[in-house]
């Protein structure tokens, strides 16, 4: 484990302790899972589809209560929604912008809802808040698009805006569920850089759910691999490549080796016992040009 037991000087930001989640009584989505994430860390959660990645994310978000075990975020058990000790930001695969609002107004939605911004919203929405949202949009390459409507933007642009919406209230924790999953390869790689910049600048604690292994190796400081259902974390490793990582660095041997190794782990997780699965025999597909 990576956490240092130095007199518990700093509690992890996110602690899932022996968490089990059952859906409807018989579907065990998570089985006795333990996961601790330090403040400011960037953790990617990878694993076969249906293994419980989104379930973990929802636990941390407080959208779901564990059947057994405890989910503790920022030192406080996650109870009722909205009672979080820490501020959270969420982004999903679907950017879900409200079509009747401009991009800028969409990005500012959290400021309308989250305390302490909420009480100042009326007063500052034309001034300080607007500038803050515009600065974020500029940072993700959407300068000048604030007044457009969602349907005037491409999928990649909407996803950038969605990241801005997840960050505008300066959350301590950023929860991302396959945020780039619906994008084409080029756009996705562009957004990795955007995401990396945002993280380096703001250092929120990030939990990224993805099934793209290159993405996890590119972005994360730590990768957790999950087994298929009932999900458990079967591998947990640090990624020590220097930052900022670039597309070139993602074709270096140590990067490709890591991706390949992750691929093997997942293949094993899908078919325990036999490592000669088809997936394991074509690990290069993902990393070749």
């Amino acid at each position: 484990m990576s956490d240092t037991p130095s007199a518990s000087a700093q509690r992890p930001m996110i602690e899932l302790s022996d968490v089990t989640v059952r859906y409807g009584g018989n579907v065990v989505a998570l089985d006795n899972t333990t996961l601790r994430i330090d403040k400011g860390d960037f953790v990617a959660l990878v694993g076969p589809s249906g293994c419980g990645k989104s379930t973990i994310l929802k636990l941390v978000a407080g959208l779901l209560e564990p059947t057994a075990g405890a989910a503790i975020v920022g030192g406080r058990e996650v109870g009722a929604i909205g009672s979080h000790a820490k501020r959270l930001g969420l982004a999903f695969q679907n950017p879900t912008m409200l079509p009747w609002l401009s991009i800028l107004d969409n990005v500012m939605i959290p400021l309308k809802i989250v305390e302490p911004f909420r009480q100042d919203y009326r007063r500052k929405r034309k001034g300080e808040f607007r500038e803050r949202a515009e600065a974020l949009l500029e940072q993700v390459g959407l300068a000048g698009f604030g007044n457009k409507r969602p349907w005037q933007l491409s999928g990649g642009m909407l996803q950038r805006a969605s990241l801005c919406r997840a960050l505008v209230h300066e959350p301590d924790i950023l929860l991302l569920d396959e945020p780039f999953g619906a994008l084409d390869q080029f756009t996705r790689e562009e957004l990795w850089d955007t995401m990396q910049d945002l993280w380096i600048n703001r250092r929120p604690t990030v939990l990224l759910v993805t099934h793209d292994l290159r993405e996890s190796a590119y972005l994360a400081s730590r990768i957790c691999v999950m087994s298929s259902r009932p999900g458990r974390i079967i591998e947990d490793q640090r990624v020590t490549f220097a930052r900022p990582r670039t597309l070139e660095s993602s074709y270096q041997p140590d990067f490709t080796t890591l991706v390949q190794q992750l691929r093997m782990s997942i293949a094993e997780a899908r078919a325990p016992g036999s490592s000669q699965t088809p997936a394991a025999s074509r690990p290069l597909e993902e990393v070749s040009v």
Partner: protein
Amino acid sequence: MNKPLPRWRRNLLSFSAMIGFFLLWEVLCRLLGVSELVLPVPSQIAAVLIDKMPILWPHTQQTLMTTLIGFFLGVFIGLLIGVIIGSSRVAYDIAYPLLVGFSSIPKVAVVPIFVVWFGSGTIPAILTSMVIGIFPVVVNVATGLATTEPELEDVLRVLGAKKRDILWNVGLPRTLPYLFASLKIALTSAFIGTVLAETVASNKGIGNVMMIASGNFDVPLVFAGLFILAALGVALYSVSALLENRFTSWTQRGKGSEAA
């Protein structure tokens, strides 16, 4: 495919068609010598309209007011019920069959009940138009709310949004196009309800005037009443269409320039 005509030409053509219709009516009636007891000619109806306007005007106002009061009550109550039903999956599933049941009752049937409860007059007319207006609003609002994307709701709930916040920021705006679609129906139905109740159980309103005129075989006056109702109906419909355009321009993506 036919190209759509430019707007002014469309309007001009519609207007000419209307004039043409009345001209044809007038000419045919005169040529065939149709009795005014069967079908009066438009010029005669117009004369009656002008002549009797001092008497007809208060009744016109009565019908309009009754319709509007009934409509607003119906929309208000419909909105309330719609929001309650639409914001909970369970309530939606339970209440929907009930709503369908209620809305398939022919609304004429409720007039006698209201007369029993409140006597004949303005109140049954208001209530009838209200009852008719409620259902389209409830159904549309509830449907609009129930189809809010769950992912967006998650994003907001995690931010600490209360049910009220989500309703106000997402649910209701998303429902607006549905609501306005229902308003047009509700308004025209409220109008029908008013006239219906006036004909059956009232001593005021255009519906009542037409009823009495028909009893007196004053056919031109009956038609004058019909013209007033048509004019009211068109006016009400145009107002609701105008409002709809104003408030739901975002649904017409890419059509022309967007509203700033």
